[in-house]
């Protein structure tokens, strides 16, 4: 069956090429459906508890997605007639941003004051045309002393201010809504700067962040994928010295990427930050198959075998190992389906499909192309094994030191793993080259952080928010929150009520406190509410029945652990001080704060299942339970060590890194498979002792492992250059883990084998029981032996 397929491929290469092209172009048609969903909510599954809590809070009050214009006059003073006029114009224009429902700025802040017996509710800067220099001290005084404004809309020094536009995305067309709002905001920014060259403007807010997810990932793909192609091209030409082979490989890669993405489009996938790395991952992983086939073919041709026969031999020899490693890699990626975050499930499924497609193309289209392309073979000496020979000698010679030495080193590195801090700060998902990150850092340095928590407090009683006891609790909470070192700002109903009480008593500052009478608060609030214009009402902090209120706290940018700690502190405060109310805390920040942990828990299960499956396959492939178990160590250790090394590199793990263990498992297992199978081949077929078998394994697969590792590490290092840190970290840690896997396979596994395998016969030895022969002979083994032995596995 297999043989017939190979023969068909080689007898009718043109047909194979045409059929493949038909398939690829057919699937490419689906790529038009592949659109980027720019919404941070895609990172959360429907059943995510933090998402559910946040969504229901948004249904009770109003949505809090926003665009923030951060305005900094170059003269460091917001309160000049000219700047205020510019801000007022920007405020008015902001109502034109698509889906905007509310605009808050220093000029339209609803200032309240009393005059004689009347209370006035009016824009702080009513008509910027008429304000003069003389009004400035008064306006500044009001603004920087207003708890609703200071540290949120205006800095205490009044050198930076924000025009905050609340945007309510309908969610009908998630692909276009965010870019529409962003386009308008950017146009306004450009126009504003043109008209006010002495004012600097930054754009931040959740909408800008959502947009950055798409932009950052798409620019990545536009730069990183070509770089990766360059790396592959150079690497192959340099290492394999073949233009035709490189050309055919590039075609395989391109076809794999196109059909993977096309099929994803056909089946209704959409792109997200993580899943947009699929092309680069598939690219990296698809190269390996081609390298294996090419290497064997060249070896055969150098031995004088005619090209067509050489290709056929190579296919026959490589079919099973390539199939096996493709399946294990796919299983590793499929383990991402256990992730709590849908984009990673998509990534896993898309890459798994890509890896299998690469396998199919490698055994059909690739040989078909090779049979048509002119291929010349240069004779060159097989001197490459010298390094491996020396490495083998070193490992065999120093095995008594290497085993304990490596063990200690591995344990030490793994010991760092728990030291990693859990962190998903979505601001830091973007590196400093991304404008959103720059703007948000600037805001953090000059005004406030972007970490918010929305605290909904339910009294369980209609109009319950007017109960003096309740207001008192909210007031205490507000003060307590402000006293926390992490707090930048608290938006609370209690401040409004206090101010109204003062206004109703002729602006007497001694009445800046909460009324003790329920009806009084209710009537103040009614009066105030009846005075507010469109878009500035209290619906964002009161529910329709006035039975609950939402307090919004803004903190400096915090790590996930810190956020979860504050969340617990707030719940503890309620338990101690206001236990009769029902409290819910939610926010996008908290969703991200919890997802890392949730994802780690779910991925532990996924990775374990993948490990069991892969170990079973290995056990069958190696035909040995014992070696199946031995293989567990070099398969598990690299990921654990990778996280240990990560502590030394970065020390913060989150959503993206929690999937790396599962993802790399399927890749690193290939090294173990190759090494162990060669070792066992030497033990079983050639009756070598463990030392000789180790040398044999080094000589036969050492270089191949080294080359594929270089390609894989290079590929994931390219990904590590992403401006989207979620992807960059994933790439870097994967590269580190794959490299560690090679070190473990070269320095630890052989020493372990020589220790555990002793001189006894391999338990499943199928042939003679002769004593091992000299080790030197194996050093001359070339890739031909490699290929013979590969046949034996799987």
């Amino acid at each position, binding site marked *: 069956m297999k043989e017939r397929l190979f023969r068909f491929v080689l007898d009718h290469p043109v047909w194979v090429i045409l059929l493949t092209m038909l398939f690829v172009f057919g699937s490419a048609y689906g790529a038009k459906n592949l659109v980027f969903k720019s919404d941070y909510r895609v990172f959360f599954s429907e059943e995510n508890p933090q998402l559910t809590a946040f969504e229901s809070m948004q249904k009770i009050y109003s949505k809090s997605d926003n665009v923030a214009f951060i305005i900094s006059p170059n003269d460091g003073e917001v309160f000049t007639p000219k700047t205020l006029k510019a801000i007022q114009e920007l405020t008015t224009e902001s109502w034109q941003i698509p889906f905007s429902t509310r605009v808050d700025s220093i000029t339209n802040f609803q200032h309240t004051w009393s005059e004689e017996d*009347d209370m006035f509710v009016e824009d702080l800067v009513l008509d910027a045309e008429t304000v003069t220099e003389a009004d400035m001290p008064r306006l500044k005084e009001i603004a920087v002393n207003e708890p609703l404004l200071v540290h949120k809309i205006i800095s205490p020094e009044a050198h930076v201010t924000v025009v905050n536009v609340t945007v309510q995305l309908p969610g009908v067309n998630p692909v276009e809504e965010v870019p529409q709002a962003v386009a308008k905001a950017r146009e306004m920014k450009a126009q504003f700067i043109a008209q006010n060259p002495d004012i600097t403007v930054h754009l931040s807010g959740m909408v800008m962040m959502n947009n950055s997810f798409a932009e950052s990932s798409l620019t990545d793909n536009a730069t990183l994928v070509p770089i990766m192609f360059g790396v592959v091209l150079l690497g192959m030409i340099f290492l394999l010295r073949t233009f035709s082979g490189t050309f055919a490989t590039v075609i395989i890669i391109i076809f794999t990427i196109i059909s993977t993405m096309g099929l994803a489009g056909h089946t209704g996938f959409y792109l997200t930050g993580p899943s947009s790395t699929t092309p680069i991952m598939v690219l990296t992983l698809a190269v390996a198959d081609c390298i294996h086939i090419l290497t064997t073919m060249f070896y055969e041709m150098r031995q004088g075998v005619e090209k067509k026969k050489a290709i056929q031999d190579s296919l026959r020899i490589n079919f099973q190992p390539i199939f096996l490693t493709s399946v294990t890699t796919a299983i590793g990626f499929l383990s991402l389906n256990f992730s709590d975050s849908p984009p990673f499930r998509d990534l896993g499924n898309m890459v798994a499909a890509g890896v299998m497609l690469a396998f199919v193309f490698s055994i059909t289209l690739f040989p078909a192309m090779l049979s048509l392309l002119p291929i010349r073979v240069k004779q060159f000496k097989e001197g490459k094994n010298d390094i491996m020979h020396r490495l083998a000698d070193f490992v065999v010679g120093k095995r008594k030191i290497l085993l304990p030495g490596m063990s200690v080193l591995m344990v030490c590195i793994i010991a760092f793993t728990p030291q990693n801090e859990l962190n998903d700060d979505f601001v830091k998902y973007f590196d400093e080259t991304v404008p959103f990150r720059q703007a948000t850092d600037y805001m953090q340095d000059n005004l406030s952080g972007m970490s918010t928590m929305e605290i909904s407090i339910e009294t369980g009683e*209609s109009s319950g928010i007017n109960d003096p006891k309740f207001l008192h609790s909210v007031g205490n909470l507000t003060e307590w929150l402000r006293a926390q070192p992490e707090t930048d700002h608290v938006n609370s109903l209690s401040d409004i009520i206090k101010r109204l009480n003062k206004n109703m008593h002729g602006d007497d500052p001694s009445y800046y406190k909460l009324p003790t*009478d329920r009806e009084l608060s209710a*009537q103040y609030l009614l*009066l105030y509410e*009846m005075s507010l214009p469109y*878009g500035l009402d209290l619906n964002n902090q009161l529910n*329709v029945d*006035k039975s609950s209120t939402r307090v919004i706290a803004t903190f400096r940018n915090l790590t996930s652990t810190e956020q979860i700690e504050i969340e617990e502190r707030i719940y503890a405060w309620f338990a101690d001080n206001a236990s009769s109310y029902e409290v819910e805390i939610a926010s996008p920040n908290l969703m991200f704060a919890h997802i890392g942990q949730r994802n780690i828990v779910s991925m532990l299960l996924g990775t374990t299942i993948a490990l069991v499956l892969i170990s079973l396959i290995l056990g069958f492939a190696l035909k040995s339970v014992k070696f199946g178990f031995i293989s567990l160590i070099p398969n598990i250790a690299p990921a654990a060590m990778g996280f240990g090394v990560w502590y030394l590199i970065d020390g913060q793990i989150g959503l993206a890194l929690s999937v790396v263990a599962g993802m790399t498992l399927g890749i690193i297992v290939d090294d173990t498979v190759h090494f162990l199978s060669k070792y066992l081949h030497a033990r079983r077929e050639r009756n070598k002792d463990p030392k000789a078998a180790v040398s044999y394994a080094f000589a036969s697969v050492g270089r191949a492992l080294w080359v594929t590792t270089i390609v894989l590490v290079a590929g994931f290092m390219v990904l590590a250059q992403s401006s989207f840190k979620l992807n960059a970290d994933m790439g870097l840690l994967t590269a580190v883990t794959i490299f560690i896997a090679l070190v473990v396979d070269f320095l630890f596994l052989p020493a372990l084998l020589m220790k555990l395998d002793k001189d006894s016969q391999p338990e499943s030895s199928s042939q003679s029981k002769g004593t091992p022969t000299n080790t030197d002979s194996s050093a001359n083994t070339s890739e031909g032996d490699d290929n013979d032995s590969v046949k034996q596995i799987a």
Partner: protein
Amino acid sequence: MTLLNKSLKSILIAGLVASPIIAAAETAEEKGMRIAVEAKASDKGWQDMQANMNMILRNKLGQESIREIRMKSLEVEGDGDKSLSVFDKPRDVKGTAFLSFSHAIGADDQWLYLPKLKRVKRIASRNKSGPFMGSEFSYEDLSSFEVEKYTYKFIKDEACEGGTCYVVEQYPVDKNSGYTRRVVWLDQEEYRPWKIDFYDRKDSPLKTLTYHDYQEYKAKHWRPDLMKMINHQSGKSTDLTYGSYTFQTGLSDSDFNKNTLKRAR
């Protein structure tokens, strides 16, 4: 000669203006305006009115809240109407009373009586776009219709619940309005509104108001028992139900001032 020419011309012009040929060729703007004038005229003469009003507020999650209001209105010739509303629910604002003199042009005059404080407070004048008692109705949605408040454009005739409707676009004159335009469906028989679409400041659909269960009072004045307002952006809605309509109860100007506001209950 010139004099004769001039007078001849004026006669001709006068004749042309009055001619039905021109009337048939009226522009969409003129037709819209004509419909507005006719609509206003058709309801003229109701003098004064009293009714009970219930508001049911709902959010996207389905939570509800009820407001109960008693209201009195007085027709004012040549300007907007006067109205006085007394709040019965929520309980903690019971007895709060709201007095409004709406004006055809410019900001309305509004006062609120706070029983706990026993004081009448004037309310900011630029709030006409703001929500009324936290509902999806703004003041401008609830205040009386005056021809001068809008400019008009007739769009088309369309079948509607009340038979055949004029569909007219109305553009608010006041810059403090929360809308760029309203699209109104008025039936051709009685000039009753059946539906209004509201468009926000960026001309996106904001709200839709529908009128239900019209009753005829005094053989001329049609009033709905139910008005439903849905906010398309926030997913919130408010139902307004009316009951116990009475017309021409003998109210006069002296029933609508700051003193009566204090005594309202």
